[in-house]
C-alpha cells in the first residue's frame, strides 16, 4: 500500500475511535449543544422584544430571532471547540498516545481523527441548534443554493476553530486548562455583530467588533440567509478561516511532534 493509502486508513481508524468515544460519552455532546440552545432561548424570549425594537422602527421578537441566529450558530461552533480541546487534552494524558507513537502509523492520524470527528460533532450540533431556532421563529429566506453556501461557510469556520481547539488542547498541561482556554471564543460573537449591530457600540469596542474574525463570518451568513448585503465580508470570512486553519494546523503539528512523553 502507498503512503497515501496508509494515511487514509489510519486517519479513518482514528476517526472511528473518536466517534466511538462520542457515543460512549454522550453527555459532553449534549452539554455542548445545551449552551447555545439556552442562550438562544434567553435572547429570543427574555431580551428579544426589546432588542428587536432596537433593530428598526417595526422590529419585534421574530426579527430578533432572525438577527441573532447566525451569532448563536457561531457560539455553537465555539462551544464544540471547547469539547474538542477537552477530549484532545484527555487523550494526551492517556498512555495510549505513547503507544501510538511507537507504532508504524501515519503520525498525524491522531490529530486528523480528532479534527474530522469534531467537525462532524459540530455540524451535528449546528443542525440541532438550527432546528431549535426554526421552532422559535427563525425564518430565513434563502434559496437551496444559498443554504448550501451557508453550510459551506459554517463548515469552513468550524474546520478553522477545530484546528485552533486541537492546538489549545495540546498546549494545555491539564484537562481543566483545556476546558478554560477556548472560553473566550464563546464570548467573541458578543463582541461582534452577533447580538446587536456594531454601530450601536462605543468606538473602541466597535473597532474591535468590526475587525475580529467572527463578524465577517456572521455577516456573510446573514447575507446568505436573508439576502442582506455581503460586500467584502465574504472574502474576509474566507481569508480569516484560511489564516486560522493554516496557522493552527502548523501550531498543532509542532506541539504534537514536540513529543510529550511521560
Amino acid at each position, binding site marked *: 500500500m502507498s503512503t497515501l493509502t496508509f494515511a487514509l486508513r489510519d486517519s479513518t481508524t482514528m476517526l472511528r475511535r473518536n466517534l466511538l468515544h462520542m457515543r460512549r460519552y454522550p453527555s459532553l455532546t449534549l452539554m455542548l449543544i445545551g449552551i447555545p440552545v439556552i442562550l438562544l432561548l434567553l435572547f429570543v424570549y427574555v431580551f428579544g422584544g426589546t432588542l428587536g425594537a432596537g433593530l428598526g422602527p417595526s422590529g419585534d421578537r421574530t426579527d430578533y430571532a432572525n438577527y441573532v441566529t447566525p451569532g448563536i450558530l457561531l457560539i455553537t461552533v465555539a462551544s464544540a471547540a471547547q469539547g474538542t480541546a477537552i477530549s484532545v487534552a484527555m487523550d494526551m494524558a*492517556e498512555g495510549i498516545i505513547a503507544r501510538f507513537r511507537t507504532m508504524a*502509523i501515519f503520525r498525524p492520524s491522531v490529530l486528523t481523527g480528532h479534527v474530522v470527528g469534531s467537525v462532524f460533532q459540530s455540524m451535528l450540533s449546528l443542525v440541532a441548534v438550527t432546528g431549535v431556532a426554526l421552532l422559535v421563529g427563525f425564518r430565513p429566506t434563502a434559496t437551496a443554493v444559498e443554504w448550501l453556501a451557508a453550510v459551506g461557510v459554517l463548515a469552513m469556520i468550524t474546520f478553522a476553530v477545530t484546528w485552533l481547539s486541537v492546538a489549545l488542547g495540546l498546549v494545555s498541561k491539564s484537562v481543566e486548562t483545556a476546558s478554560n482556554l477556548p472560553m473566550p471564543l464563546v464570548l467573541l460573537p458578543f463582541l461582534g455583530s452577533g447580538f446587536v449591530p456594531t454601530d450601536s457600540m462605543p468606538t473602541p469596542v466597535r473597532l474591535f467588533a468590526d475587525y475580529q474574525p467572527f463578524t465577517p463570518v456572521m455577516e456573510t451568513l446573514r447575507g446568505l440567509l436573508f439576502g442582506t448585503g455581503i460586500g467584502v465580508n465574504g472574502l474576509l470570512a474566507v481569508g480569516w478561516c484560511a489564516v486560522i486553519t493554516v496557522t493552527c494546523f502548523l501550531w498543532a503539528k509542532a506541539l504534537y511532534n514536540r513529543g510529550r512523553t511521560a
Partner: protein
Amino acid sequence: MTSSRKPAIVTTELRKSYGAKVVLDGIDLMITEGTIFALLGPNGAGKTTTVQILSTLLRADGGHARILGHDVTREPDAVRELIGVTGQFSAVDNLLTGRENLNLMADLCHLDRATGRRRIAELIEQFDLAEAADKPAATYSGGMRRRLDLAMTLVGDPRVIFLDEPTTGLDPRSRRAMWHVIRALAAEGVTILLTTQYLEEADQLADRVAFLDHGRLIAEGTPHELKRLIPGGHVVLRFDDQEGLDSAARTFAAATRDDAALTLQVPSDGGVGSLRSVLDHLDRDAITVAGLAVHTPDLDDVFLALTGRPDGRADQPDDRRDTRAGRSGQERASAR
C-alpha cells in the same frame, strides 16, 4: 550456542540528559535475538529512558541504537514495524471495550479483516479475557488491564518487545501469570527487553541481566554470574541487653554486631539447615534471644555489593525493611 544467532538490540555509547541532569551516561548493550534481557535498577536509574529511546519515543543525545539492524533515529518507521511496547503506565483506551481496543490495534497494524479477527480471538483466549472482552476497559482490574495492554502489544506480532516494569503493582498471582506469558513469547523466538526493580523477576525470566545505576551499566551477566557478586544472606538476632549480645558474639565469631541496636548479624544462606545450626548454638550456650529475622539477598544487597552504598529507594513502602537494609549497609560498609 547462542553465538550463531543475530543480535536483536545493539546500543553503543547511548547518552541522554535533561538539562544538567545526566540520565544515560554511555550505555552499551548487545541483546541476542530470541532471548530475554532484564534491565534492573532503582527508580531514576534510567531504565524507562532506555526503553523510550529504543522504542523511538525519545531521541538520544549521543550514541547509536539499532533494532534488528535498523537505526532508531534514522529509520524510526522500520523500527516501529518490528517492535511492541508495554509501558509502565497502562496504554489502553478506557472508553473502548477490550475487543475494541484489540480491533483498534489490528487496524493500526494494517492487518486484513480476517487475519485481524483470528489474531484477536487467539489473544483473547490466550490472555483469559473472554469474559471481559465486551466490557469497557475502564472497568478492568489492574491485572486484567495489564493483560489487555500486553495483548494489544502482540496484535502486530512484534519481533522485539519492550516491557517496562510489566509486573509493578500486580498481585503475586497476576505476576506469575505475566511471567508465564513472557516465557511463552521468548520460546517463540521473540526478543524481550524487560525492566524491573525485582531481582526475583530477573532471576525467574532473564537469560541475561544488566544493572543500571545513575545512567551507567554497573554489571552485566547471566543471573548465575550476577548472584555470585551478591553477598549471602544473614540471620539477625535481637537481644534485650548487652550481656546477651556479648555472649552471642562470642558464640558466633563471624558475626557483625551493632551495639546501639543490640543486634547481631550472623551470616547464613537463609536455608533451614543453617537456621537450625544457629538455633542449636544459641541453645547450647543458653543465650536468650528477644527476636530473630532471616534476611535473604535482594536488590538492595546487589546494589550494596556493586556500589558499596544502599540504593536509597525513597518510595519503598515497607519502612522496616528499608531501615534494616540501610543499617546492614552501614555495617557492611564499615566492615570493609
